[in-house]
């Protein structure tokens, strides 16, 4: 418990630092939201900026923002005049989370067995094939797979709808398949390679030899003994990986017209939409901090060798 408490506190501190740095960097970008090809008269510009308190001294803006943020109010968006940042996150996050969740699930479902098979057939046919595929998976930018899928499966073959994110349950899965698939390539490849190298490392350990000497069936040795240990590092990277998928889904969301949060992040910076920039940065910082905390705790539970600092002796 004390461990969690300390972690939460340091997490909060991290978020505060990120908030402040973002605020400073944001304010230093040339131009602001209202900078446009068509200039407004000076008086009008002042009035419009006054409405959003943009003329207040920076320190006041900063403190006001922190105050509101801690009450959970992230303020208005400039770009979407009728929507608050909270609303944008509320509507966008579940979509990105679903897409990311499915992609991550696929990545694990494919990556872990691939890594195991690869390790078992080390340097033979299957291994070479899987290693080749995973190298491609790691090096390709996500939009290549996305565009290829969208074009060949969607346009040429007409099997799946090209884009959109229909919310009626019946058709929904059709719209999830391609984006999730495209998004899962890199994680799957990464996980496969990670599992492979860990399996090979674990296979050399004494307890594996013991298990085999005991005459246990191969499958049991592999899954029950080797895999359980080899997969621990996967758990470790799960936290940052989940966060990366959520933030990195920008391109996929744009190509498949998925109304998630990824695109919002970049657009808001280009637009200088201060409220959205700050809100999303804080939100993602919070997610990353939480993911890391959860993963660390799980790791402590999963691996009896690890003792979380401050927790009682098991």
């Amino acid at each position, binding site marked *: 418990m004390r461990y969690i408490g300390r972690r939460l506190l340091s997490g909060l501190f991290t978020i505060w630092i990120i908030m402040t740095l973002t605020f400073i960097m944001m304010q230093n970008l040339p131009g602001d939201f209202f900078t446009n090809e068509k200039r407004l*008269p000076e008086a*009008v510009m002042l009035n419009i900026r006054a409405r959003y308190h943009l003329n207040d001294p920076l320190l006041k803006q900063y403190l006001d923002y922190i105050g509101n943020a801690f009450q959970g109010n992230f303020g208005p968006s400039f770009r979407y005049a009728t929507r608050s940042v909270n609303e944008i996150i509320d509507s966008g996050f579940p979509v990105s*989370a679903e897409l990311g*969740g499915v992609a991550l699930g696929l990545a694990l479902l494919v990556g872990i067995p691939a890594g195991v098979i690869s390790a078992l057939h080390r340097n033979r046919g299957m291994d070479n094939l899987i290693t080749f595929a995973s190298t491609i998976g790691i090096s390709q930018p996500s939009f290549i797979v996305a565009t290829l899928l969208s074009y060949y499966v*969607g346009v040429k073959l007409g099997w799946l709808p090209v884009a*959109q994110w229909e919310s009626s349950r019946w058709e929904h899965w059709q719209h999830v398949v391609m984006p999730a698939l495209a998004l899962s390539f890199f994680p799957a490849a990464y996980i496969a390679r990670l599992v492979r190298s860990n399996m090979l490392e674990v296979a050399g350990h004494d307890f594996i030899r013991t298990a085999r000497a005991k005459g246990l069936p191969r499958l049991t040795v592999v899954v029950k003994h080797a895999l359980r240990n080899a997969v621990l590092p996967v758990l470790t990277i799960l936290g940052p990986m989940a966060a990366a998928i959520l933030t990195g889904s920008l391109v996929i969301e744009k*190509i498949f017209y998925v109304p998630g949060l990824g695109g919002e992040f970049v657009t808001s910076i280009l637009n200088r939409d201060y409220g959205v920039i700050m809100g999303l940065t804080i939100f993602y910082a919070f997610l990353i901090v939480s993911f890391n905390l959860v993963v660390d705790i799980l790791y402590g539970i999963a691996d009896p060798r690890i003792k979380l600092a401050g927790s009682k002796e098991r």
Partner: protein
Amino acid sequence: MFRKPLALALAVVVTFGLLAGCSKKETQGESTGSAAKEKVVRYNAGADFRSLDPALMTDLTSFSAENALFEGLVRITHNGIEPGAAAKWEEQDGGLKYRFTLRQGLKWSNGEPLTASDFVYSWTRALDPRTGSEYAYQLYYIKGGEALNSVKLMIKGLDGKESENPNLATEIAEAAKNLGVKAIDATTLEVTLAAPTPYFLGLTAFPTLHPVSQKAVESNEQWAAKPESYISNGPFKLVKWEAKTQAVLERNPHYWGAADVKIDQLVYFMVEEQSTALNMWETDAVDIIDSPPPAELARLRQEKKLQVAPSYGTYYYLFNTTVKPFDNPKVRKALSMAIDRQKIVDNILRGGQKPAMAFVAPGSPDADPSKDYRTVGGNLLKEDLPEAKRLLAEAGYPDGKGFPAFTFVYNTNETHKALAEAVVEMWKQNLGILSVTLQNLEWKVVLDKRQKGDYQVARGGWYGDYLDAMTFMDMYVTDGGNNDVFYSNKSFDDLIAAAKQTAEQKVRMEKMHQAEQILLDEMPILPIYHYNQQYLQKEYVQGVFRNALGIIEFKYADLK
């Protein structure tokens, strides 16, 4: 049981994903028409709306929806200016006053009556500084409009600190009383202008001058965010708006011209990625899309799928006339004359655009309304290589020798890049100017640099706000807010001022033609081509009109 990290991790992730998916709001029904006989048109607006409040929207995407949802005093259609909410109007006092007679029995989409005082309320609201309308300047043509909009929200106290203006409400009320718009009775609206403005009539079709329901606005600050609170007066009404996904509009039975509206439902998609929109169009998931990806234009033209419409805008380059060597008109003209615009349009743009041989784009009337201003004005610049070389030599840089190195700034975009590269190559080949650095920067950064004069050559594009040459011409008066080239010429200023004093079209047009001649003689800006609208539309969709301002009109749309 938690000792299997694999199962654990999987469980966490899948649970998370499922929870997120399950907690998503179930939206009711399906957007596309399910009834067999319902006529539905699906249009890709290209982005989510900034706002559906007529006073707050600034983007073409919002305009495209607003034009279907609302109606101003007039409407601009394939018939030109046609009566909208106003059945007839009369010009008085040499163009300083307008008297509009509204139709009898006008209603809001909730059935309540719409009267002249709704227009007074709406225009006052758009000009009210508390509303924060960025397009309020479209109402400055009305007497007292600018004064109302300029009432300060914040004032500097004696201690130099900014604080809220304590007299705000009174000052606004005072200014509103002086505003030149009055409701004489329920169907008569009298408008007094600040100066004669021949294009004022067309201007009333612009979204900022559309009426809004006082009831809606006062009931809820976010009235324009939800269909339940949305009240409008146009051919369609708002039925659904899903953020970043789509909006659905249905025929408005209370619209005076509902009998003319053939379409039952309009669906606006918000796909930003051009290639995705194209894929959707080719798989029949959408009926109309704008701006197909430039790389596909050649193929789409060949397959006869691409359609174009005029657009009242010009793509041009800016010279910072305060820095050497661009302070010398000979240099600027030489650079302009050495460019082959037709080649650029044919080989790089490939979208059927027209080279710009002057600044004001085609699409606005001249003194004789049946003639286009641009046709009457003719070509004001020429492409003449020997002349260009001569001018450059006269300026002191024969064959480009000694021409100082400079930077050419444009905003990040494949087309801008290709164009800039082509132009720089032409300068190199034709004039011997070798030392140009191309720099692509983010849009806001480019704008910032332009505003501050922190550039040498930059890229720009100007779209007219209304269909009259003045929207282009008055940019370059001395110290004009949009005069990023810092151009200053007394004769030019005088001509523009004279054109603004009179409603006499003959005089106005003559002055503007002369002013444009001066502008192109000195070439502080380098016109390249005139924009057009490129779109793909299924053959079974008819009656959709696009005006040169880019606003799409669905009132008379029909499905074959």
